[in-house]
């Protein structure tokens, strides 16, 4: 098999492969920096929590409009946002930690969702309908993901500095009169936007996996915030590309294939990265001597 047939032909022959690749690019650009900030803020599990937290919204959307993707996505988005904002506020005005506060609200939300689905009596797996797969990305989903990536980059460019300060030293930001809570809420909105759009377009595993794994891996390669964001985006896109090809040539389900490639990159980074990896710890470079 030639290199061309291995790497390029699938994308040239099949439109769905091209769409999937472009969706990966968009999601990588948006999710890379967002994931990196989540890691910095110790909110790495938020993505998982949100995938459950959207249930009541999706269920209400279903009850109101039937199996309408728009209604269910909108409901899911509102539910996810409510959970994220409420837990952010509680974590900021009380001594409760962010992760505990998030866990509390997402569990309430999940239970509420199960309740609504059950009383409605129908047992179509709502999440199954709501969560897409990367192979089924259509033009609308592509436009959605790309617009959200664009918005994300612009908003981050605007509030990035405050956000990083708020991550590392919230006391300092408050002392100099920075708008800490407002910045946090803007960030939470971004997280929810990226994830819920990702759920709908690509599936939960893909959306959360491509947000968190590259960001966690980037930590072993880059030192500054810009470098971290760029590295996570690059790893995310590379994993998407490689995962799609694996799925194509080896007949593997595409979502798990992509996420597992990202997982492989993470493990390799832990072992071999240039910043604080096992390699630098156990095999330190020879000291320069004067």
């Amino acid at each position, binding site marked *: 098999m030639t290199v061309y047939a291995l790497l390029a032909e699938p994308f040239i022959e099949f439109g769905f492969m091209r769409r999937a690749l472009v969706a990966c690019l968009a999601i990588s650009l948006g999710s890379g920096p967002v994931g990196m900030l989540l890691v910095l803020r110790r909110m790495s599990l938020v993505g998982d929590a949100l995938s459950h937290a959207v249930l009541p919204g999706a269920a209400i959307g279903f009850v109101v409009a039937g199996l309408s993707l728009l209604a269910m996505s909108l409901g899911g988005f509102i539910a996810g946002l409510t959970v994220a904002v409420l837990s952010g506020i509680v974590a900021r005005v009380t001594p409760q930690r962010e992760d505990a506060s998030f866990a509390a609200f997402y569990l309430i939300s999940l239970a509420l969702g199960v309740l609504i689905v059950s009383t409605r009596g129908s047992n179509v797996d709502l999440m199954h309908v709501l969560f897409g797969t990367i192979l*089924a990305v259509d033009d609308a989903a592509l436009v959605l993901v790309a617009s959200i990536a664009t918005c994300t980059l612009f908003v981050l460019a605007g509030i990035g500095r405050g956000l990083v300060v708020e991550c590392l030293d919230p006391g300092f930001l408050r002392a100099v009169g920075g708008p800490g809570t407002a910045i946090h809420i803007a960030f939470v909105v971004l997280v929810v936007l990226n994830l819920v759009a990702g759920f709908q377009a690509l599936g939960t595993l893909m959306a959360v996996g491509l947000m968190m794994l590259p960001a966690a891996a980037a930590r072993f390669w880059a030192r500054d915030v810009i470098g971290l964001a760029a590295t996570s985006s690059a790893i995310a896109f590379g994993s998407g590309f490689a995962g799609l090809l694996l*799925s194509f040539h080896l007949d593997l389900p595409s979502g798990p294939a992509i996420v597992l490639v990202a997982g492989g990159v993470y493990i390799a980074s832990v072992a071999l990265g240039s910043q604080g990896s096992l390699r630098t710890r156990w095999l330190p470079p020879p000291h320069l001597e004067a």
Partner: protein
Amino acid sequence: MQPISRRLLLTASIALGLTQGRRPYAAGKLRVVATFTVLADMVRVVGGEHVEITTLVGPDGDAHVYEPTPADARALAKADLVITNGLGFEGWIDRLVKASGYKGPRVVASDGITPLEAEEEPAHGTQGAAARPHAHGHDDDEHDPHAWQDLANGRVYVANIARALVGADAANADEYRFRAKAYDRELTALDRDIRRLLAAAPADRRKVITSHDAFRYFGRAYGVEFHAPVGLSTESEPSAGELATLLRQMKQEGIRALFVENISNPKLIEQLAREAGAVVGGTLYSDSLSGPDGPAPTYLDMFRHNVGEIAKAVIG
């Protein structure tokens, strides 16, 4: 194991005998629990006003991913008769019956049909009557459960259900037999009509793509070739390679008919249609009937609707 289950059976039949003896004096109707809508509709037709039906998986529900509720267990506990599809369709029913304490008879509607082996490679279609004879033991999990998608099997279902109703409620036996016979005639007539209608399309055009592999019995019976990008159940995720194989095949063989089913996500099918320049036809009803206002509220309506949609696509 063996002696215990025999004793259980004995107990059950004694209990059954008791209820049978008491039934004519009870004012209530025969309480039947059916696992999903197709069975419930058959019971309704055969049982008429003498039965009260509880359906566990309701209209447009998906029995593959169903989770029983306490209300279901309660309905089961009070039931006189439980009717299941069998062939591994209701993986949850054994646990539910045990949990509910139901001791009455359980009727497997698909008893006596010739089951198709479950397919291992979901991307490959089944060519009409030439189902691949994979011999793989006779575990229920190895069989394709969607047997009601062939009206000949539907007749077996109805006969099994009628026998069960007669056994559970001897007082109305004649009426059950009468109604079952009339229903059987309707099924036979529809079966003949469908064959005649689909025979109008040339064999190489009778190729259809659906979102979940529920129509293999239909394909075997009526000579329509079905392909599904997702496997037998609704849970698995397709691979890019599988999708590519299917697309190449669609382009090569000129398959232009694509359908979504009432219980799954239509996005994948839409993607295939876009890419192959085909059109997405209407909704096919596979594992579940529609509500009373939908296009497929009964078993017969489901067939008429599905065949109408397929005929429109392959003949039109």
